[in-house]
């Protein structure tokens, strides 16, 4: 109740102002020159990605994310593009083209409310120390990203951006490092209880107890309607930060804590209910066995070493098209070696769609 839906205040707000060119490092420039996909895609809501290197993490002077397409060259280009926008929005009356900018930031304490809202249903409806869990994510500024709307650059008398809506959060928490925290304790207990299969439970127990120091809990949550262009940079950011942390952290212990051997993910999917054959034949809706709410979960599941599902207890509001599906929880364990493959497949999956 305490968050505002992302507002449409940015509509055409970018028309007059020239965009700052953020490709000051060779790395960003090369990324900018090679990326080309989003400008050609005018049929859906147009997004431009931006980023701010945060003050809290100056050592990563290299821009965190590539600036896409539109920004670069000249003001006139920008205007032309926007004119095309306007014409299109005149012609296609159903689809509005809205400019939105998203910024990728390091987590900070002010993001508490937004991140907590995103993780509200992380462990079904079990009462647990969610606030403590969110605190862990926000304290780990070296690995973890929070996506907020980015208007900060151009506003003069800018207020504290404590009020910005958090659209997405991603982080990786070492289960061994934080083992004493109440929330991690409760999370492990929840997962072990939720697991039905004895064999899988044994494997899970070893992971959570003996090998906890090598397991990274990959927390990734975003609003359902977040644009898919955000997803690959989000995961790139995470895995890059994990590898930078293994070199940059001040103590050897911390450096080692980011050498994950595997990642544990807790997420949700829709699985088809057992329905009569007669009904399904006539239904024009979805026919797949599993619908993944987050596209990358499909890739994770294929690359996972093992996974299990569990029933959810709280009331669900299931959209009409998915009335033949149940929302269930899914837990997956993915080996760290599979990550480069994942990143490749994620890019190609989302570049097509």
């Amino acid at each position, binding site marked *: *109740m*305490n968050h505002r839906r992302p507002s449409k205040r940015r509509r055409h707000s970018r028309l007059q102002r020239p965009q700052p060119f953020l490709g000051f490092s060779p790395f960003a420039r090369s990324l900018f020159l090679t990326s080309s996909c989003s400008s050609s895609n005018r049929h859906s809501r147009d997004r431009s990605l931006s980023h701010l290197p945060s003050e809290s993490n100056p050592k990563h002077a290299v821009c965190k994310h590539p600036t896409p397409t539109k920004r670069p060259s000249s003001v006139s280009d920008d205007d032309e593009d926007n004119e095309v926008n306007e014409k299109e929005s005149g012609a296609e009356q159903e689809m509005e083209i809205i400019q939105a900018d998203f910024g990728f930031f390091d987590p900070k304490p*002010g993001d*508490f*409310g937004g991140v*907590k809202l995103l993780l*509200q*249903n992380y462990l079904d*409806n*079990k*009462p*647990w120390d*969610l*606030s403590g869990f969110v605190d862990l994510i926000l304290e780990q500024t070296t690995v973890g990203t929070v996506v907020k709307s980015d208007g900060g650059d151009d506003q003069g008398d800018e207020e504290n951006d*404590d*009020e910005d809506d958090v659209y997405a959060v991603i982080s990786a928490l070492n289960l061994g490092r934080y083992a004493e925290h109440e929330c991690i304790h409760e999370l492990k207990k929840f997962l072990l209880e939720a697991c039905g299969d004895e064999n899988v439970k044994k494997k899970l127990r070893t992971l959570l107890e003996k090998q906890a120091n090598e397991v990274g809990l990959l927390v990734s949550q975003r609003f359902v309607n977040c644009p898919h262009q955000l997803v690959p940079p989000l995961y790139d950011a995470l895995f890059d930060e994990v590898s930078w942390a293994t070199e940059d952290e001040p103590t050897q212990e911390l450096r080692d804590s980011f050498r994950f051997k595997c990642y544990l993910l807790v997420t949700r999917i829709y699985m088809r209910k057992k329905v009569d054959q007669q009904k399904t034949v006539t239904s024009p809706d979805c026919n797949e066995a599993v619908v993944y709410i987050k596209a990358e979960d499909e890739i994770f599941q294929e690359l996972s070493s093992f996974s299990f599902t569990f029933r959810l207890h*709280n009331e669900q509001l299931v959209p009409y098209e998915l009335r033949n599906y149940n929302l269930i929880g899914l837990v997956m364990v993915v080996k760290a070696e599979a990550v480069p493959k994942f990143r490749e497949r994620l890019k190609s999956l989302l570049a097509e769609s």
Partner: protein
Amino acid sequence: MATRIQFENSCEVGVFSKLTNAYCLVAIGGSESFYSAFEAELADVIPVVKTSIGGTRIIGRLCAGNKNGLLLPHTTTDQELQHLRNSLPDQVVVQRIDERLSALGNCIACNDHVALTHTDLDKETEELIADVLGVEVFRQTIAGNILVGSYCTFSNRGGLVHPHTSIEDLDELSTLLQVPLVAGTVNRGSEVIAAGMTVNDWTAFCGADTTATELSVIESVFKLREAQPSAIVDEMRKSLIDTYV
């Protein structure tokens, strides 16, 4: 006394409950600990009623009330209306109103004497509010927000408003409401005050994330430290209270 509680995993206790000097409404479906927290504080003094409104649990944001009456939106079912009429004390007038802005809890903030309302409320609704709740009605905004019922909460003894309310606005509101006001937050910096807490003249319930500082501000502005339920008598304010500094 102010108590910290939680509804399932949410700290927005003002969404799932409505507390007044004469009764308390609590949403069904939460764990028993939510309900029993209210019972523990209030059981001997005022009735604690479990209900839903329009089949939903967000009762605190849908209804508006004080010791004189309770206003319900048009989405309230007949059974719910009857249940409330049966469970609440006879002197509380329960009325279902036909208002386009059906989230009455977000549009109306009131105590036993004054109400602040959303600027776009119907004239008939305004009259009904004055009638049923026995209050003087003022159309106001809080820090530029029209949802006055969400961004401020006040009892007969004090009030808490949106943190970005200016000093001039605070002065003006304080004069209108005749109670000391403070601009503050609840639930670790949340500005939606009324969603994060619920209060009457002798007790308050805040979300579990509320910090110790926020809690002490709440206890001091609502004067909860010395208050006893038996001391609640209908008082006429004799002195004009300026801004609480």
